[in-house]
């Protein structure tokens, strides 16, 4: 029986820290990896890479559109460019550049995006992109990876080098519990973190940890849950989702993203085709964020632990 009680929490660390470490590690093993940033070297934790591989690091200034095109051009000879900037500037600002020069042209570019979602915090809604998963998963051939903690972000950063094709890797700013160190990681394979019989909690990114906390509360009320960590949103591990939902017939999805276009939509689409199921969505409901502390924002916008518990109970009651 897989249980969250077996997870070992090893302090808190930002997922972007995992990216920085993973990038340097990947580059040590693969001389084809190059890195570009748009004036956000420190925020993306790319300092170590620059120190180790100065000739493979390219500072592109505050010009993200050009950075995406340059990365596409670099990839032609077989280099593997990793671009690093905030999620907002990695997607919405440069959508057409990604669409034409990278995705349609099938270029092996790794778009690495930090400060995604509400947990960016005080900078406010201009920077808190909540639409990026939707935009990226709509692009044909684009892999979308959203790891749940710093350790997994490190592994994902290294793993995507082995996938030939464009990848969107999304991570964040705040210190967050690290709890996956003992777990195997494979791109495209969902992680089952807890087994239960009543509800399938299906989450991605920071919200996986909030689901761990919610499961403890639900257990006190006699409700047991599967917890699936969908670190690879595209391609989705459909088999793992259907297997869990076939058992529980009840779903709650949780993501730091708009309700439109994200993980919840993707799961609902899958289940409507294969296994129509009661589903509740823990996501931002068609609104922009605002300034505040990450924890405050998650609660205000309905992404707190209590919101997952509430969603689970609602789904549970609808199932009955």
């Amino acid at each position, binding site marked *: 029986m897989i249980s969250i009680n077996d997870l070992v929490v090893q302090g808190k660390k930002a997922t972007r820290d995992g990216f920085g470490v993973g990038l340097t590690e990947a580059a040590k093993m693969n001389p084809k990896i*190059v890195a570009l940033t748009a004036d956000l070297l420190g925020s993306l934790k790319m300092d170590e890479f620059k120190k180790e591989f100065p000739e493979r690091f390219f500072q592109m200034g505050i*010009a993200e*559109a050009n950075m995406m*095109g*340059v990365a596409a051009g670099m990839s*032609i*000879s077989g*280099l593997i460019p990793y671009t690093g900037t905030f999620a907002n500037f990695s997607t919405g600002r440069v959508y057409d550049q990604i669409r*034409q020069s990278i995705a349609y042209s*099938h270029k092996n570019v790794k778009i690495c995006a930090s400060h995604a979602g509400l947990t960016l915090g005080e900078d406010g809604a201009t920077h808190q992109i909540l639409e990026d998963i939707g935009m990226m998963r709509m692009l044909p051939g684009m892999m979308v990876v959203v790891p749940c903690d710093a350790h997994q972000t490190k592994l994902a950063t290294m793993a995507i080098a082995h996938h030939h094709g464009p990848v969107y890797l999304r991570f964040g700013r705040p210190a967050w519990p690290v709890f996956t160190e003992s777990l195997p990681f494979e791109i495209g394979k969902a992680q089952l973190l807890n087994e239960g019989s009543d509800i399938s909690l299906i989450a991605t990114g920071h919200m996986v940890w909030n689901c761990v906390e919610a499961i403890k509360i639900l257990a006190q009320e006699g409700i047991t849950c599967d917890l699936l960590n969908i670190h690879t949103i595209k391609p989705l591990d459909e088999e793992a989702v259907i297997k869990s939902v076939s058992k529980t017939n009840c779903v709650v999805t949780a993501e730091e993203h708009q309700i439109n276009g994200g993980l919840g939509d993707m799961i609902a689409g899958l289940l409507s085709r294969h296994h129509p199921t009661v589903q509740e969505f823990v996501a931002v409901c068609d609104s922009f964020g605002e300034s505040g502390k990450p924890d405050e924002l998650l609660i205000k916008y309905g992404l707190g632990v209590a919101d997952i518990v509430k969603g689970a109970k609602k789904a549970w009651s609808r199932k009955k």
Partner: protein
Amino acid sequence: MKKDIEALRAMANQVRRDIVRMVYQCQSGHPGGSLGCTDFFVALYGSQLNYKLPFSMEGKEEDLFFLSNGHISPVWYSVLSRSGFFPTEELKTFRKLNSRLQGHPATHEGLPGIRVASGSLGQGLSVAVGAALAKKLEHDSALVYALTGDGELDEGQNWEAIMSAAHHKVDNLIVTVDWNGQQIDGPTEKIMDLGDLPAKWNSFGWEVLILENGNDLELVIDTLELAKSRLHQGKPIVILMKTIMGYGVDFMMHSHKWHGVAPNEEQCNTALNQLKETLGDF
């Protein structure tokens, strides 16, 4: 891949025939800029570009060319096919269903000669800068060429790319601007004035060459040679190439009206009568 000038002139005439016939056959596409840039493409592929066949995407140790103003695909497709990249017969599939010759150039269908999609304007220079940086990093001494439209310079991304190429001392790159002074809605000075274009490029840190007549094949070749001789000195090079949109077909010349319009049967025949010499139509 050097040919004598008379052979290149004959090729240019055939390429112009191909452009008119391709656009006529599918009743869509962009003849104006294609005809204006024909001499450049023939000069580039016929006398300058060190390319290898069969085509490989990676392009190691060969010169690379990127077309940013992808709508002039007819001239590129014609020159690619007549340079041996794919059968000339395939030109007849231009813009038709299940073709590798998409309306705007794409890699998606695997057409040899194309390394990135273009059409949404303003993206090609960035890609060329990236490819040139990769060649420098990998100690590949081959060159990177790119062509952009002048109207296309309205797009801000170009100026990001221009700034970055100078900053990173991308001195293995030759960019040519098709300076025909026309864009879809009219003359560039009326739609979005480019101002002092040579001064702009110069102030961004580029070596600027002005080609007064981009429809004089020999002058195009000489200017490309001159550009090559100025490489590897810490600066990227731009050729501001004055061309006449629609060059070679009298009723299409000097006007933005033939930017993206196909000729009817009578117009097609009139055009072909002005371009009589043929190496064999597709």
